[in-house]
């Protein structure tokens, strides 16, 4: 893979990397025929982001030939290392004329070369690790509510909250009121904490589609990371969300770049939507994963939290038992899933309050969306939700 970024796009790339760095410690790099995708996920699997740069974003874009198995090459690098190349945005803007990223599977390095003014070239050789597909399963079409606003409006909204605030609750009503409120978790005493609420009218939004009154709580820090990118790009931000517990999807798009940020939202233990939110939880093949119900307190006394069930599956061949909960389209959970689930269970049993992350959001479902034959036609970030409502199944 080789791609060359020039001019103002270098800064856009830099800003994207900064935004990605707010999410996870590893950067997943995957060149596809639709463009270069950069993804990150956080350690608790409650936040996922994907920046897809179309081939036209680059002055030169060579995807590279797929390996003999027909699989596109993908790898991950340490976010810290990649970020250090783009650390100083002002100097990127002033000094860097071109940025060449090349990836050779047979070599052991991802090379990022910055061609700067005055004949200076900085070459960064980053080591990478081959990795499995990182793909969160979500479908914004299934979300009942949608808001679209210029990033500026949302930046102005969150500025009223302290930088240290962990979660924020977004509320909408059919009457056209949109509110942001700081979220107080069970550990904070309500009589000692300030509650801040900002109300915006729907006039401030470019589009508001709200079916019913709802509110969702998500992590503010990760959202701010996307906001700062959105602000500099001048693109409107779309927020798709549904009921508490279902992920909130934030998107930006433009012909050259598509950005998705998926954040898990806190499920509301008192609402009936609790049941629906189990849809997004992956189950191991043997179905031994405990069903998440309001009464289930295997996590201790934090009934809002469920261990994130996440699988990054790889394209293992047939021969592994298919999970009864996955529909036919996704029949082959890989070996990774098995080991993942056993660690998950032991983690759950031994969960110690105080081990990070303190708050465990409803999981995002990451699924293997490709069978062997479908590997070549990678559908892109918007996927159908593959797991059906698993309520009632063992």
């Amino acid at each position, binding site marked *: 893979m080789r791609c060359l970024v020039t001019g103002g796009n270098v800064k856009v790339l830099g800003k994207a990397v900064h935004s990605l760095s707010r999410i996870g410690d590893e950067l997943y790099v995957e060149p596809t025929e639709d463009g270069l995708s950069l993804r990150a996920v956080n350690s608790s699997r409650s936040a996922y982001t994907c920046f897809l740069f179309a081939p036209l974003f680059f002055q030169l874009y060579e995807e590279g030939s797929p390996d003999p198995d027909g699989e596109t090459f993908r790898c991950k690098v340490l976010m810290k290392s990649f970020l250090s190349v783009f650390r100083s945005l002002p100097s990127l803007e002033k000094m860097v004329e071109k940025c060449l990223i090349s990836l050779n599977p047979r070599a052991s390095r991802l090379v990022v070369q910055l061609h700067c003014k005055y004949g200076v070239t900085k070459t960064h050789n980053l080591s990478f690790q081959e990795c499995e597909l990182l793909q969160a399963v979500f479908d914004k079409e299934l979300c009942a509510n949608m808001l679209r606003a210029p990033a500026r409006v949302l930046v102005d909204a969150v500025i009223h909250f302290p930088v240290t605030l962990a979660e924020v609750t977004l509320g909408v009503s059919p009457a056209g009121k949109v509110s942001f409120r700081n979220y107080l978790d069970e550990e904070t005493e309500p*009589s000692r904490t300030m509650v801040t*609420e900002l109300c915006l009218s729907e006039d401030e939004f470019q589009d508001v589609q709200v079916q019913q009154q709802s509110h969702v709580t998500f992590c503010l820090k990760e959202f701010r990371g996307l906001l700062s990118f959105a602000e500099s790009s001048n693109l409107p931000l779309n927020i798709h969300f549904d009921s508490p517990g279902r992920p909130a999807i934030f998107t930006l798009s433009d012909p050259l770049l598509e950005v998705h940020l998926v954040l898990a939202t806190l499920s509301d233990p008192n609402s009936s939507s609790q049941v629906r939110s189990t849809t997004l939880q992956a189950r191991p093949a043997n179905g031994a994963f405990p069903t998440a119900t309001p009464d289930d307190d295997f996590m201790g006394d934090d009934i809002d939290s469920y261990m994130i069930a996440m699988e990054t599956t790889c394209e293992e061949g047939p021969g592994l038992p298919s999970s009864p909960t996955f529909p036919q389209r996704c029949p082959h959970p890989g070996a990774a899933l098995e080991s993942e689930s056993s660690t998950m269970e032991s983690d759950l049993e031994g969960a110690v309050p105080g081990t990070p992350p303190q708050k465990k959001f409803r999981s995002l479902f990451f699924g293997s969306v490709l069978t062997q034959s479908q590997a070549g036609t990678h559908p892109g970030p918007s996927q159908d939700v593959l797991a059906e409502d698993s309520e009632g199944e063992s």
Partner: protein
Amino acid sequence: MFFPTELQTTTLQAKLFCPVLEVLGSHLLKLYPIGVINTIAKLAKTCTLRLTVDKLYFILTDKVANGGVSMWCELSQGNFFDEFQMEGVAAEHNEIYLELTPENLSRALKTAQNAKMVKIKLTNKHCPCLTVAVELPSLSSSSRIVTHDIPVGVIPRRLWNDFREPSVPDFDVSIYLPVLKTMKSVVERMKNLSNCIVLEANLNGEMNLKIETDLVSVTTHFKGLGNPPWVSEDGSQNSTQDRDPESMAEARIDIRKLLQLLAGQQVNPTKALCNIVSKRIVHFILLHEEVSLQYFIPALA
């Protein structure tokens, strides 16, 4: 409806929770009060807010929990609010005492920088709260409204005596402080070397800041500061006139407390002075146009 909740009284505390406070002011945006509230937020985690018809007071009493420091800050409400409506617990005691976290107030007012209107009201949501509602300009026809509910404790009248204004101590030396920014940078560097600092001054306008450890001692000398003229109540000259002008009065105080006071100053006060009671206490007085702040730091043993 601007406010989501109206003031409610609970049956248990009907007598205590009668105060009504509704303050309307767009002038709250002036730099001084916000600056002072920021200072207070740095000085104390919690403090008492006393509201009377004319003034607002931020009070910190010298409890052990505060390390013996105490503070008295006075603002005239007329300078900041367009409308001020208050009803204390009883007609003859038309005052309200609230316990709150000044940092919350400081954060809430930060959002009021560009506000069209700020309204402060005492409400009872999940608990008694000082609700600060800010109407902000927006790109659309309707304004943005930010509300901050700051939890407060209503202090019952029987405890009001704890919050009386401290009297000016019988000091040995009174001297104007050097430019606070300079003083702050000096003290900041000293902080790395020692936990205690000796503040000494005389009636010749000289002040020294000293630290002394086993390994090093550092002294910074300030001259030509001037001594404020104090007149005692009976009109006679201050007893300090009999004092040898060269003789230093000194007090050894916790350097962090001094730094908290200096670091919080964002706007240079009109007048800044301190009164030293040798080996007992240092009394700082900072005056801005509409605000006065007094801060007492006890001397260490």
